[in-house]
């Protein structure tokens, strides 16, 4: 039983280990989807997803650094 729980915990932490990163990334993808499907601008969708992912990474790294310091 504990093996099953550990497997589930591992899978959960693989994708939702950092809740802020997960939520921000889903918001970025939602914006990208809006650009692709609502205003039908595929290149804008690409720019939103790429720049958004970079922004999420930077936010997460600085957040991690602040936590490590404090």
């Amino acid at each position, binding site marked *: 039983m504990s*093996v099953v729980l*550990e*497997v589930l915990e*591992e*899978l959960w932490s*693989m*994708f*939702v*280990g*950092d809740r802020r*990163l*997960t939520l921000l*990334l*889903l918001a970025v*993808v939602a914006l*990208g*989807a809006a650009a*692709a*499907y609502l205003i039908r601008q*595929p*290149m804008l*969708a*690409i720019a939103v*997803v*790429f720049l958004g*992912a*970079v922004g*999420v*990474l*930077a936010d*997460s*790294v*600085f957040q*991690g*650094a602040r936590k*490590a*310091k404090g």
Partner: protein
Amino acid sequence: MLDLATAAPAVGAAFVASTVEVVEAFTIVLAVATLRGWRPALTGAVAALGVLAIMVAALGPLLNLVPLHGLQLVIGILLLLFGLGWLRKAVLRASGFMALHDEDAIFDRERAKIGDEVADVIAMLASFKAVLLEGLEVVFIVLAVGAGRGLMIPAALGALGAFVVVMTFGLMVRKPLARVPENTLKFGVGVMLSAFGVFWTCEGLGAPWPGDDLALFGLAGAFLVIALGLVAILKPRAAAATA
């Protein structure tokens, strides 16, 4: 017919990412074998590989039933979550804000743990759990890298290559693989998985890339430069924090 430009990033990403996971699993199996012998260590490892094979055989055919764009979008998002998480930790480690992952420490910890637990069954379970957990990550990596664009075979070959290389190297030196620069590997894996993640998320949204698959190289390069830039920004801050 697959061309090299399409297959190479999938093989490379699956190989490097799987190497990290296989090294972690092998370190623990080796710790178990050193304390309790190869029999319980290998029994646990082989049983876990059997469970993984059943899972892949059961889940693999279901992927054909899912629409391609939907599959690319879901896998792209999962890859981005996975890749950005790895890249974040690798940047924090490289800049000095987080301790480096230490295979020697893992080996000692597992050894100490098993030293208290004398039964072969427990040793076997430790080996089983390590191979199952790390193997699940390898399965995910192969599915994520390969399933979106019919690259399952190149991705699986990359993972198999990682398994063969680590096992050959590990059995030759017969000691923990502390010499593998793990954070460097993780840095590279984070870059590649993030690049694949952005690529497939956009493909899943119906946004075609200029240059098709070649855009992956540009994305990987961009993520690498950005991550190295973040390390350069954070390093002096980490040094100031510890001074």
